[in-house]
């Protein structure tokens, strides 16, 4: 199961966070900070999976942006690792390289893909279908 999904920049600022398990608001910041510290301290030739407390972190770096996913024991690390890539590819397709201006859209995409900690949709065109509908409504 996926516990949380974070997007962080290299300075350690959280760009997007989504939790699939209840974590108290004030504890979130602390958790995020520690998670980021853990990821940033690792070099490129090190493994992208980190055991952290009682769960695991899977992270992937895209230029200055880190995507970190917290998962529990039952999840397949490599599958999540690729999910991150899939997610980025979808973002890429939708935003054509300008990501962080429409945070609500990113959230919608993420919600289409991951629900209640489960991977529910990985088909690119289907993930974006509702968004395109939404865009059309806005335009007209």
């Amino acid at each position, binding site marked *: 199961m996926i516990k949380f999904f974070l997007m962080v920049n290299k300075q350690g600022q959280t760009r997007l966070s989504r939790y699939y398990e209840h974590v108290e608001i004030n504890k979130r910041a602390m958790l995020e900070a520690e998670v980021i510290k853990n990821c940033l301290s690792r070099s490129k030739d090190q493994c992208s999976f980190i*055991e952290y407390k009682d769960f695991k972190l899977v992270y992937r770096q895209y230029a200055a942006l880190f995507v970190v996913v917290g998962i529990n024991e039952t999840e397949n690390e*490599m599958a999540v*690792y*690729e*999910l991150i890539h899939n997610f980025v590819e979808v973002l890429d397709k939708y935003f054509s390289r300008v990501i962080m201006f429409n945070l609500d859209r990113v959230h919608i995409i993420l919600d289409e893909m991951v*629900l*209640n900690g489960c991977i529910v949709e990985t088909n690119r065109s*289907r993930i974006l279908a509702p968004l395109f509908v939404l865009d059309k409504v806005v335009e007209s």
Partner: protein
Amino acid sequence: MALTIVSQIFPREMIPAVLPLIEDKLQHSKEIIRRKAVQALYKFYLIAPNQVQHIHDKFRKALCDRDAGVMAASLHIYLQMIKENSSGYKDLTGSFVTILKQVVGGKLPIDFNYHSVPAPWLQIQLLRILGLLGKNDPRTSELMYDVLDESLRRAEINHNITYAILFECVQTIYTIHPKSELLEKAAKCIGKFVLSPKINLKYLGLKALTYVIQQDPNLALQHQMTIIECLDHPDPIIKRETLELLYRITNGQNVVVIVQKMLDYLKESKEEYAIINLVGKIAELAEKYAPDDEWFIQTMNAVFSVGGDVVHPDIPNNFLRLLAEGKVCIVFCLGFDDGKGDDQLRIYAVQSYLALLEEEDALYPQKLLQVMSWVLGEYSSLITDVDPEVILTKLHSLLKKTCVTSETKAWIMAAVTKIASRTSCSKTVDKLIQEFSNSLETYMRQYVFELKHLCENKVLMKKFLPFDASCNDMVVDASLSFLDGFVAEGLGRGAAPYKPHHQRQEEKLSQEKALNFEPYGLSFASSVSSSGITGRQSPTVLSFGSDTSGNSAETGHKETNTLKLEGVRKLWGKEGYLPKKENKVGKENEPQTVACGSLLAGQVGDPPALRSEQVAILSEEDKEKQQLASTLFIGLGSNAGVSLMGKADTSTQKFKRKSKINETQNIEEASDFQNAAASDFGPLLDTVPINMEDCEGNLHTRLRKASLCSSDIVEDNLAFETPQALKKSGLDQRLSDSRLSQSSLFADSNIEIFQPPPSAQCESASKTPLVPSLPEELKELTHSEVVELCQNDALALYLCKVWTDDSLLLTVFVSNKTISALSAVNLVFEEAEHFQILESPSYQFPVIEARSVEHCQKCVWMDKICTQGVLSGSLNFQSEMETHLEFSVTLSLLDFIRPMEMTTEDFGNLWLSLSNDVKQNIKMSSSQDSLSAALNTLQQKLKLHIVDIIGNEGILACQLLPSVPCLLHCRTHSGMLALWFRSPCSALPDGLLYQCQKVMEES
């Protein structure tokens, strides 16, 4: 969009309102709507599985949906459901296999592909489901071999995502019933992972290997070089994973190396969580496989010093217990004298701690200091060449340090006391006493005070602190049988017989002039001892030997007893047998008070004689406590000290006891693992350069190891049995109490409380022919038909449910079909999640005559609400050979629902007081278009009680046994029946609603 929201955040209370809407959407023409609807249902399932169970067939429909997305969404529900109960969905295996085959075969639309791999996450999901389904089930596993093989073959494109699939495949293959060909292929796959230069794959490979190794340790041998490489890998995560792997393959031969590696890693790591985890593992391994004493002590010291204060409290406790019992070396000292081995271990421990203390300014974690002081206190006298004075000085200097916490100080003080008891006279002790007697901390003052008094009375001290008694005093007579003699004596002298606590209360209530017993004897006793603490001589003791000697002796004596009881009570309380303690306390107090009373009344008691008598009674059982008793009468000055020490000691006892139990549990868990390790395994790291010689050696050691392990396990089992037996006796006690109380209550009033079926009834056998029938007294009650549960050549098992007013009575008939009598037939019900069997879950038929039927009855309550649950059990008997027959009984919620009679007024009051409500509209069929018809159906089928009907509204009430009410309000309007449930229990209305819907649909 609304559906997405629904599946993200949704309160469970609103589900019934929205559910029909969503069910409609399942038939929607657009796939995305259907998919979202399924996702929403998944959310419902997660938060309230009870409420969606009537639409399981709709999930099946979704699984067969023509759109892959909808199907994929339904898989989440299935994964969850199969995780909870895999046996219920075996029939779907075929469908899952077909789906996976289609996916792997590329039958999905092209846009599902991810880097030209067809729907990888879907595959992973399916593989996971198959793994769950095929676990321990050869027949189901059979179905999936083909498709797994194909998945392995197809996933050969060099991309991360295919590795993810492969990993899942391997895991599935090793989870299901094994097939050698597939295992071989999977092993090859793992090899590829481990050898891969990519670090992520290496990690996955190690993880897979760790998983696989539990089934097939030989695989590790193939990859040992790689594993060793990984061990020195710069990435700590890889290292950690490797250690995890090694942890699983540790045995007697490689433990030294593996633990060394673990310690190395431990020293480097900083994260608290990892340290706790690792320390636990090291301690476990060290305890299990320690090759010799020195190594064990050193390892443990390293654990304590590195682990510091974050180590789990069980670890030091276990360690000390092992030291005390000298168990570590039993395995390794088989050739030597056992006692000698113990002493060596202890001597070594003492020496190592002394060495550690030599370093003046070293800072040690509190836990280590505690362990040190305990060991020094207990065993320092084993070393003859070190002056106790030196040790005392060291402990003294430790005490003065500011960094030492108060808990540790208490440990040190205990050690000082113990050492002081063995030395004649010590300046350091005197100095210490002086220094700390004006300490600000009360507990320190108390300790010092005790110490002082003990020092003044050496003889007492020697007796009181016997050397090496740490394990001996663990034997505590649970039933307090050593007091039986005293009780008998009390009875002989005309004291009233012991009555349970509640019975006495009953009496007290009924007749004011009851005996002057002392329900609060405990507080009285403690007040006496507290007066002792302050150092004043307590008035009762002062008057010793005077006219009121009888009285004072009794008071004093009572104090001893209560103190003693306090010890016992604490022990029990810790383990959860509190109900017992009350009785015990009462038991002791009462006869005494009575005896006291009679003494006062004129009977001339000879106090010294009385005293010695009592001492004699107690003596065999517990030396230490005897000491306590006699000192109370002898030394006036030492009174305070002793009574306090008594308390202190009970607390250590308690702690030891607890640690022991923990240990037992640990060992239990570990023994399986040990078994596996013992079965066949060569040393790994020692044999990096493998040669023939080594192999030969291995064979021998392996054999020896196996035999050692088995003896170990037997021992463990023995240890495990004891607490169980204790528990049992506790239970019995409680049971008999409840029965007693019940009878007394019944005598007084007609309060209805639950009535366990008298066990005598069980024993009465109905000597009827082979077709079972209910005994007369049960025939009048409503009951189900007698159904056959299972049978074999010799026996047949029948069951009849009898719905009594206060419980569900399961009557089990065992009919003997053979022509010879069967003896000792055991019937055992397994513990079920939802149900609770009153009394014991097992029953033994002493003998079943040839061609006859015996029966027994069990009362069952529903513990956790569910609409349907399975209660399974087994029947064991001995004919020519041990025969075992398994059966299961399906119990539904309705079995536990009884009508609840009440007036409309009561209903109103109760309605307002209940908070959990559930509303639902259901369609009424034409046959029951009127309200009364509908209500009658409910009354008949669901055993609801119709309280009142007003116009088009009706109110009904029922209760779930034993006494959870549920109220129902019904209203009809335009062909719909609006149901509104209220109950104090949240799950009950859901379950009832489901039953109502079912009933209404059926009729």
